[in-house]
């Protein structure tokens, strides 16, 4: 008794070509009667027969679809999966029809109305027991160990159903769906979500669209650095020509912010929090309240060159002489220099008014309702600790918890020159963390600052400074030369690779990266003096690129306005949902379009990574995670695209 409906798409009905047997049968009959008829009659007859041949076998079982299913076919549904919410709407709309947040109310049984009971919300403690603080508010966690995947499917189903009935007001006719999914989503989770969608909503196809690409599309650019300040983690993805070329991530995200807010409030309430961030932590306030306060009042301080905020006790950075010296330390050494740079970069910043502004926060979920009075300076603490942790030196972080600004810088640094040039002037902030006031600007300024200090050189620190400035070091010149040479030669290799392997002109020529250096009006301009390596590369005479020339000829529009590059710039995007809506509306195909029957048969194991999908040149150039667009030959093998295969 499966709940599967005998639904057929219109394409199936139309495309149900007459089977060879019926065709041969009809022709056989024709041959019998051919003697009595002239040719014209026969032709007409064949036409009739063919028509009946297509239509009659297509409707032997009374399909219960009304003809209006034709119309339903047009309605594509775009679902954007986030950790905390899903956004659902019709393709072509500018905003989702409904946003469904995950929460404990959804996980309750139907008919269980205890939520409305007086004082029920006081009882969050028993729910939060055992490390479950706030877990009910999430759809999934990237760590799938011990996760009930079926429950993920159930949550997805319930949320989509709520969106259908409450916001979109559509019936349960099957409709094609487009899912905007974060790229790093583990396959089990993706599979659970797809299972649930296919089983319960019977869409003929589900297409997958990666959310960073969708964000880029919704910003109108082809390449971008998407900084997704998400709930679980902050993910920095470089999108180049609609392909994801690199991803970096850190655990500093919305959940961390909420936890930091809780820690802060608990401190204000006089609870001494142990500083270990494990599940044993005792919670004194409910998740809901902390999240609310984090949304309402927590803000981010503007960038200041002296990195230690006044409200925090200035903590010494890591002890000197351990490993690489850090930027902060050089700040301490030469305060004058940093101050001058500060004034130049943050000239537009208004200094905050000196008297501390105070606000009163009522707290209702504690043991007894109370309120705390905090200054606004203090309210920026959680944000500071979550995203920057600027009291620690930049070298003291583990790989999974790099501060966001450093992550953005490293993501840019790791990119090839030309990709970086394009991406750095198309930084897009997305995700829930963008609502923290001032956070985007702070990250942006911090990145500018790092770029200014270090340039695009992975090697930094005191030793390098000494090397550069100390005239006594005789080797300096030679070594500089060698690094230069090696670097530029590697660049050249890169370039030649590009030009060799991409005859289609996939990448703009390296001359662009030269422009990157020269056109850098903002931050990187000063970087030129400090760092010679890429500067030299930029100064080299750009090679003549026949492809570029050809492009310029065929596409005169690009002649007049060269896409801006090499300059740090942030642009606004309408978000992943709108991107999905746009691409779907424009009938752009996605790499991964999963047919319902195929999924029913094979599940996630049916997905293949077709070598043909990942073009050889792409493989060479972009070593991993190549997002392949287009190139679907036939329907038979299907792929999950970036999400890989099980």
């Amino acid at each position, binding site marked *: 008794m499966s709940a599967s409906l005998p639904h057929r798409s219109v394409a199936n009905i139309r495309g149900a070509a007459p089977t060879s047997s019926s065709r041969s049968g009809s022709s056989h009959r024709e041959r019998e009667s051919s003697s009595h008829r002239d040719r014209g009659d026969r032709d007409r007859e064949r036409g009739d027969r063919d028509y009946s041949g297509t239509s009659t076998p297509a409707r032997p079982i009374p399909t219960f679809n009304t003809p209006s299913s034709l119309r339903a076919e047009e309605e594509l549904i775009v679902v954007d999966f986030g950790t905390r919410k899903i956004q659902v709407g019709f393709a072509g709309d*500018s905003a989702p029809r409904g946003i469904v947040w995950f929460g404990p109310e959804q996980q309750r049984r139907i008919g269980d109305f205890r939520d409305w009971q007086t004082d029920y919300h006081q009882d969050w403690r028993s729910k939060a027991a055992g490390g479950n603080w706030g877990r009910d508010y999430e759809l999934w966690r990237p760590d799938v160990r011990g996760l009930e995947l079926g429950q993920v499917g159930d949550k997805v189903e319930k949320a989509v159903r709520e969106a259908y009935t409450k916001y979109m007001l559509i019936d349960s006719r099957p409709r094609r769906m487009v899912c905007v999914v974060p790229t790093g989503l583990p396959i089990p989770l993706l599979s659970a979500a797809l299972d649930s969608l296919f089983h319960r909503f019977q869409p003929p196809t589900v297409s997958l669209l990666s959310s960073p690409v969708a964000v880029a599309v919704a910003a109108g650019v082809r390449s971008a650095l998407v900084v997704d300040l998400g709930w679980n983690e902050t993910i920095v993805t470089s999108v180049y020509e609609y392909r994801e070329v690199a991803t970096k991530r850190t655990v500093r995200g919305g959940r961390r912010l909420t936890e930091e807010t809780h820690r802060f409030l608990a401190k204000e309430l006089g609870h001494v929090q142990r500083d270990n961030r494990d599940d044993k932590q005792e919670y004194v306030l409910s998740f809901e309240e902390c999240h609310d306060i984090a949304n309402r009042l927590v803000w981010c301080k503007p960038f200041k060159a002296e990195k230690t905020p006044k409200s925090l006790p200035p903590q010494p950075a890591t002890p000197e002489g351990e490993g690489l010296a850090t930027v902060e330390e050089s700040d301490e050494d030469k305060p004058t220099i940093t101050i001058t740079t500060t004034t130049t970069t943050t000239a537009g910043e208004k200094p905050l008014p000196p008297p501390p502004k105070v606000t009163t926060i009522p707290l209702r979920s504690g043991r007894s309702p109370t309120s705390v009075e905090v200054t606004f300076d203090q309210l920026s603490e959680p944000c500071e600790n979550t995203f920057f942790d600027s009291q620690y030196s930049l070298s003291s972080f583990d790989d999974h918890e790099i501060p966001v600004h450093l992550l953005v810088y490293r993501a840019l640094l790791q990119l090839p020159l030309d990709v970086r040039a394009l991406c750095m002037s198309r930084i897009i902030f997305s995700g829930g963390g963008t609502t923290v006031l001032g956070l985007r600007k702070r990250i942006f300024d911090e990145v500018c600052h790092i770029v200014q200090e270090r340039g695009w050189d992975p090697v930094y620190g005191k030793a390098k400074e000494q090397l550069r400035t100390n005239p006594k070091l005789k080797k300096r010149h030679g070594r500089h030369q060698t690094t230069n040479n090696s670097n530029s030669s590697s660049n050249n290799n890169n370039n030649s690779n590009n030009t060799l392997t991409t005859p289609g002109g996939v990448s703009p020529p390296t001359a662009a990266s030269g422009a990157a250096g020269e056109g850098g009006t903002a931050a990187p301009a000063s970087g030129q003096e400090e760092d010679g390596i890429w500067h030299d590369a930029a100064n080299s005479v750009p090679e003549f690129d026949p492809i570029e020339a050809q492009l310029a000829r065929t596409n005169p*529009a690009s002649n007049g306005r060269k896409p801006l590059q090499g300059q740090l710039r942030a642009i606004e995007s*309408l978000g992943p949902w709108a991107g999905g809506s746009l691409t779907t509306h424009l009938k752009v195909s996605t790499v991964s379009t999963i047919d319902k029957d195929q999924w029913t048969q094979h599940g996630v194991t049916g997905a293949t990574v077709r070598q043909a999908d990942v073009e050889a040149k792409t493989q060479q150039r972009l070593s991993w995670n190549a997002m392949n667009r287009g190139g679907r030959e036939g329907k038979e093998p299907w792929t999950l695209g970036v999400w890989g295969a099980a």
Partner: protein
Amino acid sequence: MFGNNRLPAFHPGLTQSRIRDTTTGSGLWFPGLRSPPLPSESDPANDQLPLPITQEDLYDTPMAPFNPYTYIRCPCSELNPYTKRTPDVTAQGLSRAAQDDDDHTFDPRAARSNYSLYPLEYLSFCEDCHQIRCPRCVAEEIVCYYCPNCLFEVPSSNIRSEGSRCTRSCFQCPICIGPLAVNHVETPPDPNQLLSPDHASSSHSGSYILSCSYCNWSSTEIGIKFDKPNSIHMQLAKLRNGGETRLTAKERKERRKEQASQGGGGGSSTGQGEEDLDTLLDMETQFANLKSFYQNQLSDANGTGKVGGDPSAALGNLGFDAPASLSRIMSLYTGSSSLHDKKSKSRPGTMREALAPSEGLQLASLDESSAITALQDFESTTGLDAYSSTASTSQLQSQAPYLGASPLHGLTRFTSSLRPIPYLLRTKRSKRCPQCRHIISKPESKVTTTRFRIRLIAGNYIPTITIKQLIIPGLTPPPMPNLPPDTIEPLKPAQFVLTFKNPIFESVRVTLATPATTPGRFPAKVTILCPQFDIDSNTDVWEEALKDNNATSSSSQSQNLSSSTGPEGSGPGGRKRAGTLRPGTAGGASLAGEELGPEVGKVWERGRNWTSIVIEVIPASLVQTAKRDGRGPIKEDEDVLEIPMFVRIEWEAEAPEDEIMPGLSSAKGGNKDGGKEKRELAYWCVLGLGRVARTL
């Protein structure tokens, strides 16, 4: 139905509170507040749920009084075809759920079971498939759309174009989601106008506001007033918070057309392209710009326009020139924009990126310092609390997406930037069985009628289960003195009476099964004393009603139905201890049986269309187990004693006439007695018996 007043006659020891919780006609009662599902339950004793809770109670014994409940698990959740695909997926660890499902009994505590459990009232029943249908496994069709506030029906064509919200004047308060009313405000007379002779005709502009009668919010707080008292939705769409007007999408399109026609061709578009980049687009405009930009690019890149390259034409045709838009439309309709062509079209370089606001590029204005200072100075400037100046999360979540907002991702922060929420429309839906496509439920299509044309609810087909604790004064040991009321003592046997009430007109055989110990962290030993029993049919309802009330009038159906059962259902109580009914048990013995308590294998009590049996549980000690297993403190609802029970019902029904035809009828068992057909139905259900005390 049975009044509660009869019960004390049979159970003199029942305390009043137990009666309140446990004895109602069809007695489903769920934790939390809800209106009673059946009118018979509306006796006043039931309505006293929120008891005064002491401060101590709040934190230690958290819940309001417990009411036993029954949940039924819809069988549709057992057969997810995808998770059953075990063999190859197992290696990936994907099929844990599937493995769990197959062999083990149903665990009501499992994370997933909340999604498949339903109260009986929420379930439907397909008469043709003889299967329970839950809200998850029905196919829905929409009968009509209407606004819950003004109760106007909205044609379905409007839903797609205008969105799923009421476009008349129905709004919810952004603060408290109460309904907003349109009110006329007397604008305080302007002193200058007072002086002027015709101050009576002072401008009426902006003299209507939306106001909430619950929290006194009014649209003046966000600086919005309306000229007309009707079609507020349209007026609001043109107003930003603060009263500033805003172009709607249509107006903007027209304006752009005008510009294009004035400027003419290439000149204007380049002019637009070099529009200053700081222009703030709102979300709707940005989306529209992006869309038209992409469409242009796709059609241009398609090679229709300018591969050979007449530069001026290519530059000029940003959508304002006739040939390009024509070709764009053509390409849209000839299907050349299908999936495969996209690849050839979107060759990198041929489709450029957006470069100007008119093409949808929007530079981010990262400087949010004004908002920060507004937040910080709020108290000093207005004297109000800064915290209360910000909108709460729930307020933000209930906001309708406002496309007129300039980015910051559409999220507002201050209460001053909230907007009235137009009411979400609702639908009336008819439901079909997904398999046989028969209609299960069909409401009247008129908005204001609440009647249903067809409604096959499961309560008319499957027995209801009522639970009450069995306390026999002589036998049941008195509860421990310090035990909180309404709780079950751990480690001691407690007995519960389950009453099965048969709604159908055939007698029904019920078979029960339950795991010996309940699954989950705190296992309780469960014994069903009588796992198999019959319930008599529901035929004589009218006769009994007549006898009860001594009514003289009789309705038409009652006559032919009442003849079947004569002596059994008589008597005012209509119920008898099982002992008196059991053959071979004398009347005196039945009395003794009452004294002795329930017997194994025997029905406890039996009535006209109901049968009671006894179930015995020995709950585990919560505190000790929690200490021992080291899995942390007791979580929410873990102290509730829930018993999974498998219910199998068999009955003989008259086969529907179309199935009596020879050869077709024997689908479900033998075809005997001329058109009788054996049917069965089996499902899991969950009995919530009570809270286990946290003592010991």
